[in-house]
């Protein structure tokens, strides 16, 4: 545990829904940390983190212009905005949850 930091210390994020899928855009707070973000925030790592929501697929896309990654998590919303029985049927809280992920600090810090 020691030495790990919260993702929120190097990034901010927003999430939302597309049908039964959710997306989470994660943006490095400092351009210098974009590379590190790419190394620690892999598709596999994000899929593991959200395992209890049983994603059928996690895809990552890069937005280097704003030093960000967009994650699309398939089938994680319990049926989507209209059918889901969950309070957060639109996945709006997923970003704040991901920002609690513990990650190794960037090498320069």
């Amino acid at each position, binding site marked *: 545990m020691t030495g790990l930091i919260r993702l929120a210390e190097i990034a901010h994020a927003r999430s939302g829904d597309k049908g039964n899928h959710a997306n989470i855009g994660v943006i490095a707070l400092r351009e210098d940390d974009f590379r590190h973000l790419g190394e620690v925030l892999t598709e596999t790592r994000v899929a593991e983190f959200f395992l209890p*929501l049983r994603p059928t697929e996690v895809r990552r896309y890069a937005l280097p212009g704003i030093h960000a990654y967009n994650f699309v998590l398939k089938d994680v919303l319990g049926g989507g905005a209209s059918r889901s029985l969950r309070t957060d049927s639109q996945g709006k809280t997923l970003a704040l949850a991901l920002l609690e992920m513990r990650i190794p600090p960037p090498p320069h810090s």
Partner: protein
Amino acid sequence: MQHELATITLAMESIRVGNGAGFWGDNLDAPRRLCEAGRLDYLTLEYLAELTMSILAHQKSRDPSAGWVSDFGDVVDDLIHSLQTQPGLKLVTNAGGMNPHGCAAAIARRLGQKGLAGITIGTVTGDDLFPRLDELSRAGEPFANFETGQSVDAIRDRIVSANAYLGAAGIVEALARGARIVVTGRVADASLTLGPAIHEFGWDWRDWDRLAAATVAGHLIECGAQCTGGMFSAWRPEIALGDVGYPIAEIADDGRVAITKPATNGGSVTVGTVAEQLVYEIGDPAHYLTPDVDTDFSHVRLLQTETDRVEVSHARGAAPPETLKVSIAYQDGFMASATVVLCGPNATQNARAAGTIILNRLAHAGVKPARTHVEILGAGDTLPGMPITGDSRPWDVVLRVSAADPSRSVLDRFVREFAPLVTAGPPGVTGYTGGRAKPRPVLAYWPTTVSRTHVQPEVDVKTAEEWAHTAGASE
């Protein structure tokens, strides 16, 4: 000095498009506040979420003059002064929903009563495919679900609405024909902003990069305060949201875009707030698809040029797909949710027990909803199974139990199992004062496509006085 000059130069060849509504239910004062403080050329109001059309279809089936976003009527009343004192101000909105003509007629009467009978209102329709589904099926449109590949036959007899997403073309035509207020049905959200830009600058419909630039601008402002500090994950109390300013896109003829907000309002426009909105509800950032253009967000850059002003550059565009997205809504049974509060040293544990008691009592009564879900709110259950909050022991939690079933009677029985918890549940049950919850119909979403050759926008432009006397105006 040089900086001021640059700003003035940009202002001369640019338009200011402000968005005062990001969904149906957004702040009712925002449009007026934005018009009063925003020096706008255009005010856009975006009201239609994926399933809003199905709700409006239901309303129209009960009242032929309804089926449009009723909040817009109140907003028009509130904008009378701005329309009177700012002759250059134009409105573009998708408030027309399932009935743009009815919407135009209704607001025309309100405008007429305030001495604005001469104002010109344009409608954009042609998105409603529901009456044409059989005809289009015969013409070879499969309407298969593009997420699952499922055939539309599975839901065909339960469809309540089917709308194609139109692009900016109808809006551009309405503006060209002199409309000061444009009321559309289903139009891609970003097209509400792109339409005014094409109209003002006469851009070629294949000038993909400029179309992409204005589409990014539209995407950034379409959710209102979500790009001016609302929902910002790094929000802190210094970003005042009580009087949050709604966003303004400055779009220049050459495709330069800047996002800003009225200086006299609260909120904040920074690279951070804008970046979060850029990634909101997108899939592959290299292909943000609208009927107008296939936009590449992935190389977009943001630059803070002054307080509450962020320049947006490097959007790239390409030709859009040959098909248009279609949203179909269909009936999918019923659902209900109800809540009670549990307090005490074992609130979380007792709430879980109470949830189980509800489901067990139902089972003993022979009632088994097709789907159920139990949440203890306060104990981290908004993300089921994810141990975010650790082992805190809240004094009070909300027990929320939800159920869905094809049969309404199953849910009618379900909602009766909450009140008994007050006397026949674990200790600490309180807060059951809202009355019995009501089951509601589920309208599920079926994403599909249609060939663009089958969909043409229809544009109607008349004065408010003429609209007020059309058939749709009857109460």
